[in-house]
């Protein structure tokens, strides 16, 4: 389609020209909207791995905590994942599993002075043990207390979504160990993954969204007091 129109002298020509320009502009706007929609979808980092946790299903057996410590050689006294116990006013006990939220906008990565911690192509926040100087800035700036100094390695440490397992087609150790299926792991980029379906089906909550970190652990039935 060309914008140029030879017949500019007559009124008809001007009208035709206007209609052509208007339709082109409308078309461009539509295309632009389409592109921006596509871009919004593209903003997901690669597969954008995430986790869905059904708080109702967790009964606090600590299988995930043990499996994680076993899988990742986590030393005694520090935790890549842990379970918090809350007692409601009606006496009901609720268990909330917690871990690194693999945030989309991770404040821990912002403050690392030496590029030791980074976001990988699928949105997982990882640490390069060979570069980390152990200053503790990332530990300070994690709103979830998910980072810690690994006393054996002498560097900062945290949950990696078992990246060594998931790229081999396996599930994270905590997900595999959970006897009730309270944890669902998957890719947000895949529309038909179980994780995407769960998030679309249920109303979910995320922890401390006021920090602007965009956490990627989606909870179902999270009690208000557990949002710390």
């Amino acid at each position, binding site marked *: 389609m060309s914008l140029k129109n030879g017949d500019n002298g007559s009124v008809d020509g001007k009208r035709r020209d206007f209609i052509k320009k208007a339709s082109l502009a409308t078309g461009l706007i539509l295309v632009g909207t389409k592109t921006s929609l596509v871009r919004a979808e593209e903003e997901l*980092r690669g597969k954008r791995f995430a986790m869905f946790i059904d708080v109702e299903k967790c009964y606090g057996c600590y299988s995930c905590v043990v499996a994680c410590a076993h899988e990742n050689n986590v030393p005694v*006294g*520090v*935790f890549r994942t*842990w379970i918090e116990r809350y007692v409601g006013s009606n006496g009901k006990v609720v268990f909330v599993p917690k871990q690194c939220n693999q945030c989309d*906008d*991770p*404040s821990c*990565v*912002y*403050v*690392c*002075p*030496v*590029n030791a911690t*980074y*976001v*990988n192509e699928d949105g997982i926040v990882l640490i390069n043990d060979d*570069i*980390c*100087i*152990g*200053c*503790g*800035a990332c*530990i*300070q*700036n*994690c*709103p*979830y*207390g*998910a*980072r*810690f*100094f690994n*006393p054996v390695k*002498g*560097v900062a440490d945290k949950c990696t979504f078992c990246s060594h397992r998931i790229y081999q087609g396996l599930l994270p150790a905590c997900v595999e160990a959970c006897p009730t299926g309270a944890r669902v792991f998957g890719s947000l980029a895949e529309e038909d993954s179980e994780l995407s379906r769960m998030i679309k089906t249920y109303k979910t909550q995320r922890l401390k969204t*006021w*920090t602007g970190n965009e956490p990627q652990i989606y909870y179902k039935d999270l009690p208000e007091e557990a949002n*710390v």
Partner: protein
Amino acid sequence: MDLMSYLIDLLLNILPNELSYDHRVGGVIWGILIVLYPFFTGLIAGSFVVSSLAYGFGNKKYYKIAGLALLLSGALMTAPLFPMVELKQPERATLIFTNPHIFPSETYPGVSPMAVFGVVYLAYLIVLAIEIIFTFRADMAKRYEEKGGILNRIFSLGMGYDETVVKRDRAIVKTLALIGIPLAATFHAYVGFLFSSIKARPLWIDPIIPAHFLASAVFSGSALLVIAYYIFTKLSSEKALDVDLLKGLGGIMMWSLLIAMGLELISEASRTYYSLPGEGMLFYEELISEMGIRTPYYALSILILVLLLIPQLRSNVKVLMLTSLLALVQVFMYRWMSVLTPQLLSRTAMGLLEYNIEFLELRLSIGVVALTFLVFIILVWIFPWNGRFATHRDELEVV
């Protein structure tokens, strides 16, 4: 809330990793070494500002101590050793210079305030070193002529001390003194920014911290200069103290303390209004009173303010010495409060952590302080702090 449930809250409402970061019982990540770090960078910035009042703005009153202030500032540049020895991997410390996280990208979003340190520190160190050399160059040349000596020859840069050369030296020093002020201010304010950029700690989210740090830096820097000037004059052959100079320093101390306290009151007032998540405010009050440092801190601040506000006391040399010593203690207390207190409030804002100084930390602190003294003694041994040219006692016109 009854006592029992309060105690349970206090003990249990913390995250499991907070209990044993680094297996250090209590949960504080940055200890006394990081308290000493802003204390030292504050002294650097403060003493440099006073020296620039003379060399940069030509305030004749301060020429006597401007050289000494520069040497003090130079010796205190050991400050980054405090955070360095606190690192878990100190041998990788140079990565801050070689691999700084200052360019945001998809993989490494954000700019790290700690990485900016490398850039500012190096720039300031270079400016300070050149300024020290050119400030004392003519004196070193004179010394070399009189006594000889390899160090005197090196630092005289092979030139004499006639009028044109000294005038050119002073022009260079003036430029560097003026460039150095924003650099010194940034070097210190960035430490404040480093804390206020940690958004996971509700008590550090306070934009006033960098400004307060600067004001208290000038306060502590001039207090240190009063003490240093007193000691050095008593040790030198001169013995007579310049009361005008001390009065001037007292005035600087008074104004900077007024600004610092004003900023602090604004900060405290707004903190009582904005609500922390959960029962944070309650715990904050508990935290502050439990630490038992806030009341003595304010009492000391008021005492110092009274001592400085009364002109008769301010111009009394002995009282001013006492005030300066108290001022250093007061600023150290402020650093302690601003660095440690916010870390004692758990991220849940529903529990408290505690801080126990480890013996290793104490040893490291004493080591770095001792090293700073050593560097200062070496600098004073090399450069004549009250040299004729450095203190502008020669007949030359001030450039």
